[in-house]
Each structure stands twice: as structure tokens, then as C-alpha cells.
């Protein structure tokens, strides 16, 4: 009975929505989001129950294997060394990059706060550059930087300083921290700007009187940072942390070429998200069923995190009722 009531309410809401002006404005977005977001996710979930391989849709897409892909995934996580490496890499990558992003963003926001306006603007612009750079170019820059031969910047610098005799292969030779440092470094530089922007705009909303009063009382930059800025930014820090956590779990495009170009080790340079993509598209024999199963696990984790973030954002407060209906 209750269910029925819910359904009729939903149907009523739907018809009134379709009749409204708003539905015409929303139609294109809804179409795109449904075709290229909602349905693909449904398909991915469905694929995780099929033995789909090598994109042979005609042959495999209608077969049903139950939870087999999930068992396979579970078995790999517990037995396959390279899958274990990927899982470990994901955990370390997410944890360390998260710390780099949040602390780096906070450091930059506070650092630029104490700088002159022009210098602050210039350094913030500089830190936005990685985010706005074509991914292939960005990867190329760090490919040179960490290149295992003497053309690599790191190797060249270390050799000139006399710290090493011959070039070292950071991404393939020093397992696991070599590839880990590279992927953390590369993603860290992109992510820092997010925290920087949120914190900068939050700091600019802090009443100036607080800082002036502290100055008059003789407080230095460090006291102001520790006793005023950071405590007032508490919620922003929590929010940036959860949002960045979410992005880091799902990101893969900035690592993709580094693995593709063999700059970093395939196992200790791949995260779970990249594993999903590579299993579906790149490996010799692609296995979309397995990739989809690994993907569904990722979706579940990020959905929970996403809902937590929404709560933290104070979403309810953000959506004031609109004006504009007569």
C-alpha cells in the first residue's frame, strides 16, 4: 500500500514536471546525462555479471555468469601479486596525495595571504596551470623530468651534483617508492590548486578586524595562522579533504600515460581506477566483465563518500528556494 502511494506520488510529480516550463529548459541536459551517465553506469553494472571479453558483444553480452567476476576479483586481490600491488598502491597513493593536496593548498592559501596582492595573484595563477594543461602535455613534462636516462631532469641534476654516477630508473628501479613518489608528485601538483582556491576564498571572508586586533596585540604571522586562520577554516579543511578523497579515488587520467610510456612500474604505478580502464581497453586480452566488476566496487565506495561530502558541504543551506515563479 505504502509503496503504491509512493509510486503514484512519483508519477504525479513526473507529469507536473513534464508540463512545466522547467522541463523544456532541462531536457537537453537530462538527455545527455541519461544517455552518457545513467545508462552507461547501468550497463557497467550489468556487464559485471557477464563474461564480456574483447568487446565481443554479440557472443558474450547476453550470457550471465552471476557473481563470477566478483569472485575472480576477490581471488585476485587475495592471491595475485600484481593485483595486491595495485590495491596497496591505491591506498598509499590516495592517502599521501590527499595529505599533500590539503596541506599544500592550505600552505599556499595562507602563504599568499601574507603576500602582496600582485605576488599572490601570480603564484595562484601559476598553481592553476597544471589543472588547465592538456593531460598529454602535462604527462610529457613529467616524463622528461623523471626520464630514466641522462636527459631526465632529476637524473641530470643529481649527476651534476655528483650524487650518482649513472642515471637511475626511479619509476621502474626503486620499487615501490619510486613509482609511488612519481604518481603522488604528478597528481599532487594538480590537486593542490583546489584546496588553495577554497581556502583563499574562505580566508577572504574572515572579518579583517580579527587579524587587525591580533596584529595590534603583537601577534606574528605564525600566531595568526595557528590561532585565527586554521581554526576558522576547520570546516573548509574537512570539506576539501573529503572532496579530494573522492577525486583521488576516481582519478586515473594523469597516471595513464606514465604507465603507458613505462615511466612507472605497471603494478606499483597503477591505481584501482586505472586498472578498470586498462582491463577494459588496454591489456592484451581485454576483460570487460572483470573491469566492470572492479568498477562497480569503485562506484559503491565513491557513492558513500559523495553522500558524506554533500552533508559536509552544507548542501541544504546552499539551495535556497529560487525566485522566479509566478
Amino acid at each position: 500500500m505504502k509503496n503504491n502511494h509512493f509510486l503514484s506520488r512519483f508519477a504525479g510529480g513526473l507529469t507536473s514536471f513534464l508540463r512545466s516550463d522547467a522541463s523544456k529548459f532541462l531536457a537537453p541536459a537530462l538527455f545527455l546525462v541519461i544517455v552518457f551517465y545513467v545508462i552507461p553506469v547501468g550497463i557497467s553494472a550489468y556487464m559485471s555479471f557477464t563474461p564480456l571479453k574483447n568487446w565481443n558483444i554479440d557472443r558474450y553480452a547476453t550470457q550471465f555468469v552471476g557473481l563470477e567476476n566478483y569472485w575472480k576479483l576477490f581471488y585476485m586481490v587475495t592471491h595475485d601479486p600484481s593485483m595486491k600491488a595495485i590495491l596497496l598502491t591505491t591506498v598509499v597513493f590516495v592517502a599521501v596525495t590527499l595529505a599533500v593536496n590539503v596541506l599544500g593548498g592550505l600552505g599556499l592559501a595562507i602563504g599568499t595571504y601574507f603576500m602582496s596582492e600582485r605576488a599572490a595573484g601570480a603564484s595562484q595563477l601559476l598553481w592553476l596551470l597544471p589543472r588547465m594543461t592538456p593531460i598529454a602535455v602535462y604527462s610529457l613534462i613529467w616524463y622528461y623530468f623523471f626520464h630514466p636516462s641522462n636527459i631526465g631532469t632529476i637524473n641530470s641534476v643529481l649527476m651534476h651534483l655528483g650524487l650518482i654516477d649513472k642515471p637511475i630508473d626511479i619509476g621502474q628501479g626503486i620499487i615501490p617508492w619510486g613509482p609511488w613518489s612519481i604518481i603522488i608528485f604528478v597528481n599532487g601538483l594538480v590537486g593542490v590548486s583546489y584546496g588553495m582556491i577554497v581556502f583563499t576564498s574562505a580566508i577572504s571572508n574572515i572579518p579583517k578586524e580579527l587579524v587587525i586586533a591580533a596584529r595590534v596585540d603583537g601577534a606574528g604571522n605564525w600566531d595568526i595562522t595557528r590561532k585565527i586562520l586554521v581554526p576558522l577554516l576547520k570546516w573548509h579543511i574537512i570539506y576539501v579533504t573529503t572532496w579530494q578523497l573522492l577525486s583521488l579515488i576516481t582519478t586515473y587520467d594523469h597516471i595513464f600515460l606514465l604507465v603507458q610510456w613505462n615511466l612507472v612500474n605497471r603494478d606499483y604505478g597503477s591505481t584501482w581506477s586505472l586498472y578498470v580502464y586498462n582491463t577494459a581497453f588496454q591489456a592484451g586480452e581485454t576483460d570487460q566483465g572483470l573491469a566492470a566488476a572492479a568498477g562497480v566496487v569503485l562506484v559503491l565506495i565513491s557513492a558513500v563518500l559523495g553522500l558524506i561530502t554533500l552533508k559536509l558541504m552544507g548542501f541544504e543551506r546552499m539551495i535556497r528556494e529560487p525566485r522566479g515563479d509566478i
Partner: protein
Amino acid sequence: MPGMRDVEIRRRWVEVAIALAVLAFSLPVIIGYSLMILSSFSEKMVTGLDPASFQPTIQNWVLLFQGRTALFAGYRVDIWRIVLSTLTVALGISALVTLVGSLTGYAISRMKFAGRKHLMAFLILLHAFPGSVLVVGVAFIYRLFLPPYQYVHTYSFFFVILARASIEIPMATWLMKGFFDMIPWEIEWSAIVDGASRFRVWWKILLPMIKPGVAAVMLFGFLAGWMDLIYVRTFLAEPTLAVFIEHNANAEYAYLPLVAAAGTLYLLPTILFFLFAQRLIFTITVSGVKG
């Protein structure tokens, strides 16, 4: 954006020290980008500490524009065609994202409708959706509607533009909503009372009032399309600059200074935006982040 400054009684040398610390922290970014750009004008890769490695030449650029991928052997490619494909995708995505984002942003900013709250929460969640999972499902749809061979080329362009634009729609909507929110409701109210339809109001009155906002979303969409790697390499039947770089950076015949030139060419719009459209860059990131 640099907002309110600190009070004026801080000491000068402290400020310089902090600026130097930030500069030191930023050094890898500065070095990385400069070395690539310098290398594109050099016979050998410029490696950092060794000034002798910079031997100025424009040969790399000449080779690149001739479509050669190596000094001697290597493939011949039509680099202008590659640039054109990249541009087509970027402009297509920019146009689509701007149009759809401004329609949706308007509705969310100004209209009451059933499920408005849920739609907004949904858009935020989509923004953080695992892209690699999405692309697997999108690839299934791509194959499901694959046309006869001679149309695949055109189909792939349309597909990439639509699919890639969809990913940016949540963010574009959010940006546009922010701009519409700033316009006082009374302005369009009078037009509506005079009998104008919502579409007319949106097109004739509101959009012209938020030209900077529209420009920001166009720029944002362009950059998103221009910088994309995964969608173009997975679906597009034609190489873009991203794919060109992917294939040439570590190939057997790779001539790295030439790849550096390709990278610099690919980076050019970003550099231009950073030189001439700084306000727009801040607008995109700040309002995008604030929601």
C-alpha cells in the same frame, strides 16, 4: 582570487621570505614547463643544470609543421589535420556545454520544479563519478550504435563531443547558475508580466546581461575538450594532438625535441589564456568551486 589583504603593519622582509618560500615550492612546475618549451627550440633535450644542452634551432618546429615525426625516418603525419581534429572536438564541446549549461543553470536558478533539490544533489555527485567506470559503459553504447563503416568517422566526432560534453555539464550548470543568481529577479519579472515567454527572457534579456559568464563557460568547455586524452583516444577515429603525443613520446624512432615542440603547440591555448584571460581563469575556478 586574491581577496582581502592583511593589514599593513607586517614587515617587508617577512613578506619577501614567504614569497621566496612559495617560489621554491613552485619551482618544479616552473622548471618542468620551461624545460619542455626550451627543448622544443633546441637540438637536444634541455636537461636542467647543463646550459650546454641548449642548442637553439627551429628545426623541430619545421619538422613538426612538415608532419615528420623523426629526423630521418619515422611516419609522415598531417599535423594540421591533427590540430583541426583537436580544435573541432574542443569547439564542439565548448558550444554544447555552453548551450546546455546556460539552459539548465537558468532553470535551477529561477524555477521551482519537482525534484529540483534532488537534481542539484545529483549534479554534484555526478561531478565526482569514477570516470574509468563510466567510459566502460559509454564504450558499450558506442559499439551498440556503430553505423556502417563509411559513417564511423563522422559518428565518432559526434559521439566524442556529446559524451565528453556530458561530463562537463554538471560543472557548467553550476557555473551558469552562479551567474544567473547575480541578476535581480525584477528585471525579467517585468518582461514576463509584459507577456514574454521564458525562452525569450532567457535568450534576449538574461544571456546578454551575463556575457562574461557565458565567456567563462565557453572557455571552460573549450579547455575541457582541448585537454582531453581518454575520450579521444578511446573513441575518436582520427588522432588529436593528445594521441599524437601519446604515440610519439616513447616510440622507437622518437625524436624527443620534436615531441616537445608538439607539446608546446598543444599547450599554446592554455598559455594564451593564462596571458590574456587571467580574470576568466579565476572566474571559472573560483565560482566553479564555490558552487
